[in-house]
């Protein structure tokens, strides 16, 4: 009994010491970050030596002139009378000052951020033909929006396809190929489970070495005649399509491929 109390005390004191030593490490002072520097964005055109095309040079000159004009308006160079320190401002003087402030606020010509901050090269990146088209034709606006949406979708699915072993473009190419080959049986019941999973072993050139319907047992079940028909149509699609569009490299990653043919989405849509 005494022995166990002794060991308990030893262990507990050891733990306390360990904690006392290790805790200061955990409470390390934060890394000294260098002070944040404020960087003014300037036009590359001011510094660069690369000559612009004649047209671009004219535009830039015009912009420069506008800027200069704007700057002069923003900060008027009116000379102020030297004021005596003890001079009490008269109400008229106060009004004058207020007017000047008002002038500053009513900036006569706004200089757009794009002009001030982006170079001609950067502007090219901002140019989106779909957006321009959308301005001309209202109907194109929808297309532009759709493209944006698609881009978002693409970005999210990129992650998935990396995880899968095919890049997005490779997966898309394969899908597009099979979409064209799959003749969907049109008499399918729309309210049943219409997912057929087919496992393939591929050769390096994309031809099918072996194919297997994963839910094979369902094909012979009573009342599942439509499933057999659906599975056959999927197998037919694979045969029509082969050789499948597979990447030229990374054979080990895609030699075993599972295609999930889902007719539900199409029939419901």
């Amino acid at each position, binding site marked *: 009994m005494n022995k166990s109390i002794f060991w308990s005390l030893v262990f507990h004191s050891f733990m306390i010491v360990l904690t006392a030593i290790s805790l200061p490490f955990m409470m390390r002072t934060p890394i000294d970050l260098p002070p944040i520097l404020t960087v003014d964005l300037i036009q590359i055109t001011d510094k660069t030596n690369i000559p612009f095309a004649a047209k671009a040079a004219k535009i830039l000159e015009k912009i420069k002139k506008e800027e200069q004009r704007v700057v002069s308006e923003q900060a008027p160079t009116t000379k102020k009378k030297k004021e005596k320190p003890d001079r009490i401002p008269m109400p008229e003087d106060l009004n004058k000052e207020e007017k000047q402030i008002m002038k500053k606020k009513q900036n006569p010509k706004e200089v757009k951020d794009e002009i001030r901050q982006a170079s001609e090269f950067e502007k090219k990146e901002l140019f989106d033909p779909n957006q321009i088209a959308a301005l001309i034709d209202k109907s194109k606006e929808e297309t532009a929006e759709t493209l944006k949406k698609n881009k978002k979708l693409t970005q999210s699915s990129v992650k998935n396809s990396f995880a899968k072993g095919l890049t997005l473009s490779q997966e898309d190419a394969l899908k597009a190929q*099979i979409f064209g080959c799959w003749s969907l049986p*049109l008499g*399918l019941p729309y309210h049943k489970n219409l997912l057929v999973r087919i496992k393939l072993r591929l050769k390096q050139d994309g031809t099918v070495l072996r194919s297997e319907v994963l839910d094979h047992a369902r094909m012979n079940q009573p009342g599942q005649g*439509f499933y057999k028909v659906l599975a056959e149509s999927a197998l037919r699609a694979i045969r029509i399509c082969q050789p499948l569009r597979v990447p030229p490299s990374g054979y080990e990653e895609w030699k*075993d491929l599972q295609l999930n*043919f889902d007719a539900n989405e199409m029939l419901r849509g």
Partner: protein
Amino acid sequence: MKKLILIIFYLFIFNIPAFAIVEVDITRGNLDPLPIAVSPLHVESGSKDIKQEGKIIKNVGEKISKVIETNFKRSGLFNPLKKDSFVQNPDIAHVKPRFEDWNLIKAQALVTGSVKVSDDKLRVEFRLWDVVAAKEMIALAFSTTPDNWRRVAHIISDKVYERLTGEEGYFDTRIIYVSETGDKTQRYKKLAIMDQDGANLKYLTLGNELVLTPRFSPKNQLVTYLSYFRNLPRVYLLDIETGVQEVVGDFPGMTFAPRFSPDGKKIIMSFAKDGNSDIYTLNLSTRVVEKITEHSSIDTSPSYSPDGKYICFNSDRSGLQQIYVMRSDGSNVKRITFGKGLYGTPVWSPRGDLIAFTRVHKGKFYIGVMRPDGSGERLLTENFYQEAPSWSPNGRVLIFYRETKTDSDGKGFSAKLWSIDLTGYNERLIETETDGSDPSWSSLLSK
């Protein structure tokens, strides 16, 4: 033991990299009708021509393949390829086809076969091939009297349809309807029956009595219909096979739309008694009439669910004509339509999953379908005047009739039979000799 624990420990620490199987979801496909090649059936040597109704039918193999092709085309699910493009000759009934030749013309399925007429017997063999997989899908042979060659073509169509779509066909069926002639103000109405493709038309009544609402029994080739004899409505029972007709009963007042129960033992209808229309059943063996609904409103157009447990009907008990569902004993009445306009002529699908109906809204007539609980309403077709949908035995196609407007001179009126697929596509006119109304689709003859 220690070793085992160590191994497990190491497995946890050092993950062995493994490639997960690459999965690709295919959610889109080609919705075009399936390209199918129907090779003319090869006529065996020594085969005779067929004599039918004084006409001699030569090369029955080609005729059969033509009927099959027409059936497929009308279904909207298949695209029969032109025979001009066929590379291989039809004499391939007993050998494997050269699949490369059929692949070349993009056929995905191929029908081949042979015909022989001898000793007043017609023997037809056919095979269905999966061109892409290069394998046989089905092979059958039929033997019948030569007159039945069209039916054989329909049966082959059904077998192919079933094998390629997974659901029962509807080609070996007949349609009964009311044939109409004469001006709009003075129509002569006769009962007419034909194959589903319009062939073999026969008139069953002479046209001296008004006939209405013929309905097939779901079990056999019996038909019930309503006829006015000396201005009194009578419900008749007609056996199509034997031609025997019997009066089921005289009913007082207005009587509407007699229809069989799913087991064919009862007739359900509505008739007015004491100025009030209710739904009644008539037991065909005992001739006992049973009242199903008891309401001061007008209850008409009853139709049983395929299991016989429920009845859908239309009633104006809510003020406007709407569709209701109740148990077959008349209990638990529930209204299932709440849309604008009027709903009528509900018919339960043979599959049990849908109810077809006619809807009238803002002067337009629609044929639509909905689930038995009233959800998922889909209007399939819209027109000036159309009603009375009837289901094909596989619950895939609806047949109905459509009337056209008369012009200012009172001319131009016509009533025609039309069919439409459950999807709302493939709307087709069914060619009839005269105008037609009130169609009813039979069950499969070969069942």
